[in-house]
């Protein structure tokens, strides 16, 4: 306990209501997955923010590097035809 460096960092994802997807809420320290869930409940859902929590060890996440930003994301900038903005959507369809 005194050696807090043993505690892993966990990323917390909270689903705010049924039907919505889990969203990243933040991160926290915990010694294991069960405790990470409990800590997440206390830190991120104390104002009724959630109906479901996922936790995952931060080190299990592979992230894209800021250096790769150009090759990864720039090519889609000039491909407007990928957005379905050329269609007329009937009003009855409502929000999509």
């Amino acid at each position, binding site marked *: *306990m005194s050696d807090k460096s043993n505690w892993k960092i966990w990323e917390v994802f909270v689903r705010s209501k049924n039907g919505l997807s889990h969203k990243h809420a933040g991160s926290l*320290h915990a010694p*294991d997955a*069960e*405790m990470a869930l*409990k800590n997440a409940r*206390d*830190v991120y859902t104390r104002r009724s923010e959630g109906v479901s929590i996922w936790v995952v060890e931060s080190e299990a996440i592979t992230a894209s590097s800021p250096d790769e930003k150009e090759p990864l994301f720039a090519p889609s900038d000039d491909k407007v035809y990928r957005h379905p903005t050329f269609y007329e959507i009937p009003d009855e369809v409502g929000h999509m």
Partner: protein
Amino acid sequence: MENANLYDYTLRLGDTALILGQRLSEWCGHGPVLEQDIALTNIALDQIGQARQFLQYAAELKGDGADEDTLAYHRDAHEFRNLLLVEQPNGHWGDTLARQFIFDTYNYFLFERLMKSKDERIASIAIKAMKEIAYHAQWSAEWIIRLGDGTQESHDKIQQSIDDVWMWSGEMLEADKLDVAMMEAGIAPDLNEIKELWLTKVSEILKIATLEMPEGTGHQRGGKKGVHSEHLGYILAEMQYLPKSYPDATW
């Protein structure tokens, strides 16, 4: 007072919740890590919320213009009816956890039965509180398991904490005249039954945690009758300072 017994019993429930909440709130800003600081202060707030419900009810039973604040802030130590267990000092993290585990396990079985109390008000407070208490009991048991089955150091320390707190566990499980009267009125549960459930659960968790059940049977009692350890005076001095020094203070 017409309902003197019910008033005293409600005070026991309210004072125990209040003093434990006040004790736990001392951890605010001092938890070993941010996450546990928040966990413990959440529990402190739950306890104080429960205390308010019971003290509001007690004040109504007392009449005479009493309210939750006069009961919390303008009584002296000998008028408090909380268990001795909850006024014991926080000690280190393991000591606080041991006290919490002992208490939460008892509180869980107690409130499970209070939900069916013949006194509708107590039953409704218990139903509301049960969701919180079920979480507290889970949380503190998880911690006992992790510390007991953790490192050699954490194992030895939490074993010592359990041994130390054991002598304060008897009072809550032992029925006195008031407990028996309340049980016969269908308001409170049979403490012998709670004791059996408590022993089974505590020994089960301690076993998973690779800890030994203490053997000591010499228990301290008195809190339920208003006979307290010296610690309560210090708790009240801090808790009651403001309303006693400035009786008309408002926000």
